Structures are given as C-alpha cells and as structure tokens.
C-alpha cells in the first residue's frame, strides 16, 4: 500500500472524524493507501505541508488563506464544516455584556493571530461600539481564564470548546460572527501541495474519495463515528467526543442532503478573503499587506471528485 501522511491542525478531534473513520473502517486500505495521521504539534499544519513533511494537511481556514497569500504552494481539496463553527463567547453572568458593542474596553483572551482583531473590531463597530479592547495572548488557557473571570471574552469553536463548556455546565453566552457583519465562512480545509495534484493525481483522488466516504459515513452514523473516534485512542474525555459528534450531526455542519459533503464554495471563500484583505490581515511573502486577495478560484481544486 502507498504510504500517505496527514498533518493535523489540532489534537485529534471531531473535525477529523472522517479521516479517522476512513482509516479505521478500512476505506483507505481498500483504496490501496496506508494513511498515517501525524500527531498534532506546535508547528502549524500548513507549514508542515508546505515544507514537504506531510502529503496532506488539515488546515483551518485562516491558516489556509494566510499561507496562500504568503505564496505557499498549497491547494485546498475539501472543506469540512459547511458553516462557521467559531463564535465569540463571554460569561452569561457578566451583566456588563449584552451585545458586541459592550465588549469595548473589555479584556480579550487571544491566540496570537492577526484575524482575531479584524473579527472582533468588525463586530464591535457594526454593533455601534468603539473597537478598542485589551488583548492578552493566552492560547488554550483562554477558556479557563474566561471561566475564572480573569478575562471577559474569547473565541471558541462551538463543536469542541462549546461542548466542553456545556459538559462542565458553564454558564456562557455567545455572539455569532455572521450576525455582526463578518462574512459566513466554511472551515477546515484539507489541502495538499500544488505539485502533488499534478504528479500524484491518482493518489490524491483515491485519498480524497476515501476521505469523502469517511465523512459521509460519519454524517450518517454520528454515534458510531463517535465510538470509533474514542476507540482510536488518546481521548481523555470521551463524553466530549460524543457530545461534539451529536452537535455536528444535529447542526448539519458536515452537510448532506442538498449540501454536498466537503464541497468548497468559491464565492464564500472569495468574500472571506476579501474581508481579511480589507482588514489588513493578508500579507504577501515579504510582509507587505495585500489590499486585495485577487481571484481565489485557483486556491482550490476539486477535480478529484470527477475522476
């Protein structure tokens, strides 16, 4: 079997469910592939892919667009979440916050990426507030900091941190980005190097088709998929996986029905890229701010679907 490696953007979680299902139910093996999911590390998956250390990478949308803008030769083949999974959370008990405008002057627990400022600023501005706040870069400590009241708000992924907060019965409320002028986006790209599409199109196609089968199966059988994930190991908190899968399935995040699973929407990608460019988030390879992303239709390639 041909060996194929996949870099992950985060510790194994329910975003990756299709990959795990495809591996553990033998879809990859049937396609003649021996797939290794590389453990998450402090090095970004886009960098690992661009550096040639992995054949495919699961890349979050912002990472994908930043890397693309900076000139990395990576091409998206797939996007997992058909709707925005991120949201802005705050403590429901915090009486000072009832709308994004109230966030002005508050303390934000951040993760060190440029797009956070664009996002929060847009939301506050569109809600009529002054886009000014205090940022403390905390990484994954952000959620405990929020729970303990050390910070006022942060961003979370509804299908993971959100589920965890619920399991812990934390009284949190949230604002959806889309309600305050941030374009809705798809998230969770699976990408490969541009060169691979040309040279290894067979492999790319069979890998992606097996992956598609994995996600489709997971969308249809969320409970069993959760158990497969848990059996795949290294889940110190199985209920989180179950809860997350349940939410993904019920929320229709993976698509199914009218929305094809994993289908990239070029329009939404273009709009988001433009949003980022407008906010000065996208930079080219030498660090100059891009005022426009250009045409993003070359950023993705779904020709494997046709083969």
């Amino acid at each position, binding site marked *: 079997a041909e060996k194929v490696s996949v870099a992950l953007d985060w*510790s194994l979680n329910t975003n990756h469910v299709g990959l795990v299902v495809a591996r553990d139910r033998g879809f990859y093996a049937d396609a003649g592939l021996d797939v290794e999911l590389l453990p998450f*590390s402090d090095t970004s998956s886009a960098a690992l892919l661009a550096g040639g250390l992995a054949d495919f990478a699961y890349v979050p949308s912002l990472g994908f667009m930043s890397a693309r803008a900076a000139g990395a030769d990576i091409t998206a083949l797939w996007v997992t979440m058909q709707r925005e999974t991120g949201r802005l959370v705050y403590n429901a008990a915090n009486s000072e916050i009832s709308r994004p405008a109230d966030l002005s002057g508050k303390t934000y627990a951040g993760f060190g990426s440029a797009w956070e400022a664009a996002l929060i600023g847009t939301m506050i501005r569109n809600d009529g507030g002054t886009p000014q706040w205090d940022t403390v870069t905390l990484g994954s400590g952000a959620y405990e900091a929020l729970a303990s009241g050390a910070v006022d708000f942060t961003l979370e992924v509804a299908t993971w941190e959100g589920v965890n907060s619920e399991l812990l019965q934390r009284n949190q409320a949230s604002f959806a980005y889309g309600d305050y002028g941030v374009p809705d986006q798809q998230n969770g790209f699976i990408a490969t190097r541009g060169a691979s599409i040309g040279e290894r199109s067979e492999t790319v196609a069979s890998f992606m088709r097996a992956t598609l089968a994995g996600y489709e199966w997971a969308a249809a059988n969320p409970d069993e998929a959760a158990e497969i994930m848990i059996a795949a190991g290294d889940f*110190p908190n199985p209920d989180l996986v179950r809860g997350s899968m349940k939410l993904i399935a019920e929320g229709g995040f993976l698509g199914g029905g009218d929305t094809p699973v994993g289908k990239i929407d070029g329009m939404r990608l273009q709009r988001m890229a433009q949003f980022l460019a407008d906010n000065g988030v996208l930079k080219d390879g030498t660090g100059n701010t891009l005022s426009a992303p250009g045409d993003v239709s070359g950023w993705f390639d779904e020709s494997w679907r046709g083969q």
Partner: protein
Amino acid sequence: MQPLRRILPAILIALAILAVWELYCAWADVSPLILPAPSDVARALGTERAVISEHAASTLSVAALGFSTSVAFAFLISVALHFLPPLERGLMPLFVVSQTVPLIALAPLMILWFGFGLLPKMLLVILVTFFPMLVSLLSGYARASRDHLDLLASMGAGKATLFRRVRLPSARAAFFAGLRISATYAIVATIFAEYAGARRGIGIFILSAKNNFRADLVLAAVVVSATLTLLLLGAVRLVERFSDRRRGHHAAH
C-alpha cells in the same frame, strides 16, 4: 538506613506541600481544570499508566541518546577548544549565542528543516545540554593548580601531557557538576522538542492532554518527567560514585 535518613527531610517537606495543596483544592473548591488536587493527578497517573509509559519510553530513549551524544560531543569540543585557543575565541561566542536562541522559535523551524525523525529532537537536546557541559569542562581545565602545571612543565611535559595528567583530573569535579546540570535538562529538552513535532513522547501527551482540557493529565506528565529526570540524575550520581578512586574517603580539598 543512612541514605534514607538523608532524604527524609525532603520527603517530609514534599508530603507537607502535597497535603496543603490537597486541602486547598478541597476547601477552596477550585476547578480541577485549573488546579487538580494531587489525588486527581495520582488517579490520572493510575488510569492512564499504559499510555503514559509508552510515551515515556519514547521520551527516555530520545533523551538518553541525545544526552550521551551531547556529553561525548562536549568533551571532544572542549578538548579541541583547549588545544586550539583561536578556535575557542572563534567558537565560544557562537556557542553562547546558540544558548540565547529562544527554543520556542527555533523548534518548529527545526522540525520543518529536519523532519519528524530523531534528528531534530537530538539536535535540540544537544543544543540545550551541550553548553553547560562545555562551560563546566573548560572551567574545570582552568582550575588546575599553577604548582602542578609548573611541576609537570618542568619535567618537559607537552600540552597534551599537561592536559591528561593535570587538567583532566583537576576537571573531575567540574565535569560531574556539568553532567548533573545537563542531565537535569535532558528530559525537559526532549519533551520540548516533541512538542514541536513528534509521533509520540511525553511532549505529545501533554499537548493532547492540554487540548482536551485535562490539567490532571498535564500534571501527571510533569510527575513522569520529573521521575525520569531523577532516574537520570541517579545514574549520573552512581557513575560519579563508582569512578571515584577514593570512594568512602571524604578528603577535604
């Protein structure tokens, strides 16, 4: 009996700290997500012991390999620098600079440059443990007594003989001091390297525990890391003890 009595105070203090911590967690009702009680950590260690020991084995082997390479390398370089002063003037500042590089910046780049294999991890361990060894060895060589050097020089001894018969024995204590410092950092450096990219190891375990909101597992990994380091230090102590010609005789000088 003796060794047990010697470490008794340490054990008592450690137990006292653990007790205070446990009680604080129980009374102050802090979230175990922020500060798990020692008993939570112990329980986590117990239930996850199979997984942890697999990761620990990987970490230990990388650390041992990197550390021993580093010691050998530090010794060779120290000898080279000792015999070639211009080389010392040329390389020492660079070695100092190498210690001023923040690993968090370098580690991910190392992974990109050298891949997921053993190499980048060994390089990082060497980067961390090499310098204290080198500095200790060089300062040990410099600590040789003038009288002894003069005596041997008067016998017509060349630089090599001076080195072997005076500087090397004089550097014994410094060598082991450096070895202890380096051994202390070997495991931690390995975990750090794994954090930036590895297939398994305590570093990977910590990362996934953290992303799964399991502070108890993070602390369990800390316990394992400390234990591995203490084992390494114990091994160094044994080597020191058994390589001492005057074992048991505690001469003062």
